């Protein structure tokens, strides 16, 4: 009985890791794009980004996932649970992420923009070479937050038939009756992913992108 539980948990953990990784990639790419659109000098582009952000932040993640999973097939588009899990969570989180990107871009010192104009950079070069390297470095701590939130949100994919870590723990606990053991293991399971994978990865990125900053010495 116990070994069945452990096997289910291990499988659940793997599923959670895969969904987390996939959704993190989707979110990172989309948040960067939408965040940049959000500060575009072109108004319609900005409006589009605002609409995107408000929609994905303003509606429930679970309902969004249900919608992709149960409603899209009505229009003839049936997506696999995996696709819905990765893109559903990724899209939703990117709404939050885009605002993080915007805040980081706008927090870059005004003088950096002025120096870029004085050196006659094109807007694209200014964003690519001067603004974004500083903004991305500044947004990493919030990015860490977001990825950890995203990790925990993956448990909602149970509702679209994915046997991820939380549901595996619940199943194991129900089957064996050992709620103390399995839910405690589940608690630590998430903690370990966050603490042993996400946090060190984000810290590593921070260090890599930190030459020239004071905090390099403090990290």
């Amino acid at each position, binding site marked *: 009985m116990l070994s069945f539980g452990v096997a289910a948990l291990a499988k659940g953990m793997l599923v959670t890791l895969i969904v987390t990784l996939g959704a993190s990639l989707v979110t990172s790419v989309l948040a960067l794009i939408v965040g940049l659109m959000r500060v575009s000098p072109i108004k319609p582009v900005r409006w589009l980004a605002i609409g995107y952000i408000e929609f994905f932040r303003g509606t429930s993640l679970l309902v969004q996932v249900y919608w992709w999973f149960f409603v899209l097939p009505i229009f003839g588009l049936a997506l696999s649970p995996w696709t819905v899990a990765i893109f559903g969570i990724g899209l939703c989180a990117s709404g939050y992420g885009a605002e993080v990107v915007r805040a980081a871009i706008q927090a870059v*010192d005004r*003088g*950096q923009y*002025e*120096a870029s*104009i*004085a*050196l*006659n*950079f*094109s807007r694209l*070069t200014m964003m690519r*070479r*001067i603004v974004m*390297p*500083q903004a991305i*470095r500044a947004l990493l701590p919030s990015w860490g937050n977001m990825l950890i939130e995203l990790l925990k949100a993956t448990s909602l994919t149970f509702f679209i038939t994915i046997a991820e870590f939380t549901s595996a723990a619940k199943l194991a606990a129900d089957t064996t009756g050992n709620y103390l053991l399995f839910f405690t293991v589940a608690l630590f399971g998430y903690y370990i992913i966050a603490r042993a994978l996400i946090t060190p990865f984000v810290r590593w990125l921070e260090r890599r*992108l930190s*030459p*020239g*900053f*004071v905090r390099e010495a403090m990290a």
Partner: protein
Amino acid sequence: MNEPRVRLQNAAMYYDALTVLGQPNFPMAQNEKIMNQPMVRFENVTKRYGALTVLDKLNLDISRNERVSIIGPSGSGKTTVLRMLMTLERINDGVIWVNGEPLTHMQRSGRMVPANNRHLRRVRGQIGMVFQHFNLFPHMTALQNCMEAPVSVLGLSKPEAEARAADLLDMVGLGEKKNHFPIQLSGGQKQRVAIARALAMRPKVMLFDEVTSALDPELVGEVLNVIRKLGAEFDLTMLMVTHQMGFAKEFSNRVCFFYGGKIAEQGSPDQLFGDPQNERTRQFLSAVLEAK
């Protein structure tokens, strides 16, 4: 100030006026006209922030290689003059000309229309600026700070840009520090890197916006020395907003005293500092001298 022009050849290499005259939009017949034209001309330039008029119909001509200091109380609009010329501020009225060509406007079917971004980029390439707070790129070394724009704007190859940047960092006395990040440099060193960075674009006009105001007093001298050196070695038109009256007196050909969005008085340093005609100028100068 009266240093021999030892590096003139070097300077001529950087600031070859002929390259401008050879540009397609400057036909040969116009060359002489251009040489006689002011390097910078403010023509009835007005700048407002909402209801507040910061500059009121400013008219100011600056000749080629002239060094003009702008002094005046805070809020008199003196920094705005530089910021408008660098296109960091839009003007509300009037035209700014650079090297005989409108900067803020362009001619379209015989009419002057506000400049588009492409026009701005083309004309402002002749202008460089050094800021009060340096504005170095913190994620790049001194050398990279000086290479970035020559590579990505002028299209220089990396080795070319690096040679140019290293030369200029040597010139400002920071050859040894070229691989340091701004955070590892003192204020005076940062400002010297900023000067080298601006020069790497080979501007014809250099703007200095209170470049020593953020520095500890003992670091002011090293920056002023670099500016003196520029005056001696490069063909540059220089426009500086400064609180260093001594330096303005020694270095500039002309001093403009701004008050309430207008030039209240202008003249040679000897004239303006020695025998100011305007009551406001006298008040300002005595207040500044008292503070010392």
